[in-house]
């Protein structure tokens, strides 16, 4: 059975990707909200925000983009929960589970689909950012590092999304969990420097994962040394990934496999 694990996962990934292709609105709406935030902050609030020295020399869109990319991922993964929920409710997961296929094929197919769909959304958002004046001197390696950080973050949050996808009792519940994730960047260094925040809020902002990830991506885009923030970001992302992965798989095995 394990010999087929890869081909089973690919067959099911092809199926989910077809779902995405046939409802391209899921990619467009994923990209639309972050783009709206970007327009709002660049043209409405941006002029009033002082990003200070060094952190984001240049236009505000340069400062803003890393946080916007994380918001893109947070809104994109809610579709994974949604699609998985519908599969569980419709009985098709049960059909797959009663077949001689690799036990991990069903969840991994949804996760890989999420990664592909989110990468497409991220490319669209970065494209719009360039139109708004985003510029970077980052080389190929720095871009690869940014891509790596974003894909790892997508993987981690997608495994988080698998949990409500398996356990929710309604479609709304399956996708609502992502709202707090979308707002986490607002309580981080994504839009304003944390130094401008009042005490407790500043403490939270400086100790939550989004700030470390945002600072890492910002440093890569501005060709600065990533420093210790990179390791903090990596530790957070890997920790979220591991906890969500183990939890999601325990639930899946108990309920469906």
């Amino acid at each position: 059975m394990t010999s087929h694990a890869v081909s089973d996962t690919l067959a099911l990934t092809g199926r989910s990707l077809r779902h995405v292709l046939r409802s391209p609105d899921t990619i467009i709406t994923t990209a639309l909200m972050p783009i709206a935030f970007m327009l709002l902050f660049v043209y409405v609030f941006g002029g009033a925000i002082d990003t200070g020295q060094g952190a984001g020399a240049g236009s505000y869109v340069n400062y803003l983009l890393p946080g916007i990319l994380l918001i893109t991922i947070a809104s994109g993964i809610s579709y994974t929960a949604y699609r998985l929920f519908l599969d569980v409710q419709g009985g098709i997961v049960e059909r797959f589970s009663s077949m001689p296929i690799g036990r991990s094929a069903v969840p991994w197919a949804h996760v890989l689909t999420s990664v592909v769909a989110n990468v497409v959304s991220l490319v669209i958002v970065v494209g719009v950012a360039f139109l708004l004046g985003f510029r970077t001197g980052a080389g190929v390696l720095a871009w690869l590092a940014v891509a790596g950080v974003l894909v790892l973050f997508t993987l981690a949050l997608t495994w988080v999304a698998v949990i409500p996808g398996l356990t929710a009792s309604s479609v709304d519940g399956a996708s609502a969990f992502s709202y707090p994730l979308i707002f986490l960047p607002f309580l981080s260094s994504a839009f304003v420097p944390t130094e401008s925040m009042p005490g407790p809020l500043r403490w939270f902002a400086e100790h939550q994962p989004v700030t470390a990830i945002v600072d890492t991506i910002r440093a890569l885009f501005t060709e600065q040394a990533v420093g210790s923030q990179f390791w903090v970001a990596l530790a957070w992302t890997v920790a979220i990934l591991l906890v969500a992965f183990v939890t999601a798989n325990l639930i899946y095995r108990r309920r469906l496999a």
Partner: protein
Amino acid sequence: MSALAREPAADPAIGIQGLRKSYGDLQVLRGVDLNVARGKIVALLGSNGAGKTTTVKILATLLAPDAGTATVAGAEVTTDAATVRERISLTGQFAAVDEILTGRENLTLISRLRHLPNPREIADDLLARFSLTEAGSRRVATYSGGMRRRLDIAMSLVGDPEVIVLDEPTTGLDPQGRREVWDAVRKLAAGGTTVLLTTQYLEEAEQLADRIAILHEGRIIVDGTLVELKNLLPPAEVEYVEKQPSLEDVFLAVIGHTNQTDTDQTDQKERR
């Protein structure tokens, strides 16, 4: 019950002994015994909540039993689940088809997941067998209830599994859809596949099944052919009732319900 002594099935397609399953305090299966001979259609008849779906899910390796054994074509469901999954195919209570894909894509996907060569040929063949060739390139979301069910059953046939389990295949279908599904099941049996079908429709069991097992309160209380089941009621009845007892009469009698409106049969029911 000596008339209903079980057939000595040396090598049954499905063999269930002493199967028990509880959900918390609720005992759903209290020792189910059932043998299904190869190539037969057996109907598992019971009211809602009798344990039909639980039994079927254990056979399809979706649930683990608390006690007892169940084998499918010789493989045990808990110790050899991988082999069981090769030999059984479950069509669940709700048509588990992918609405966004076309009928052909659904069948091709299942063929790939069963690791068969030529998935497209298999899909085309099954579409033809279930009169879905024209609809094959349309999304399933546009199908009628009967067409979905036929596709659902066609998906279960991919790879010719030895045993097909149909869980309430006609629930929610209109009479036309029901007839379509019945025809499909008859064709299956004609091809030598073993079919275990659960139903709460007595007419369905009467129409399709070689043998009928009645599951009531977590046990099989009767298991036999339709003729054997009808003989359960004393023959005296035949002498003064014009109509033969329908399976519905038998069903209500053996599960111990008194049928208020049918005074003719009250005597028999009290004697049981």
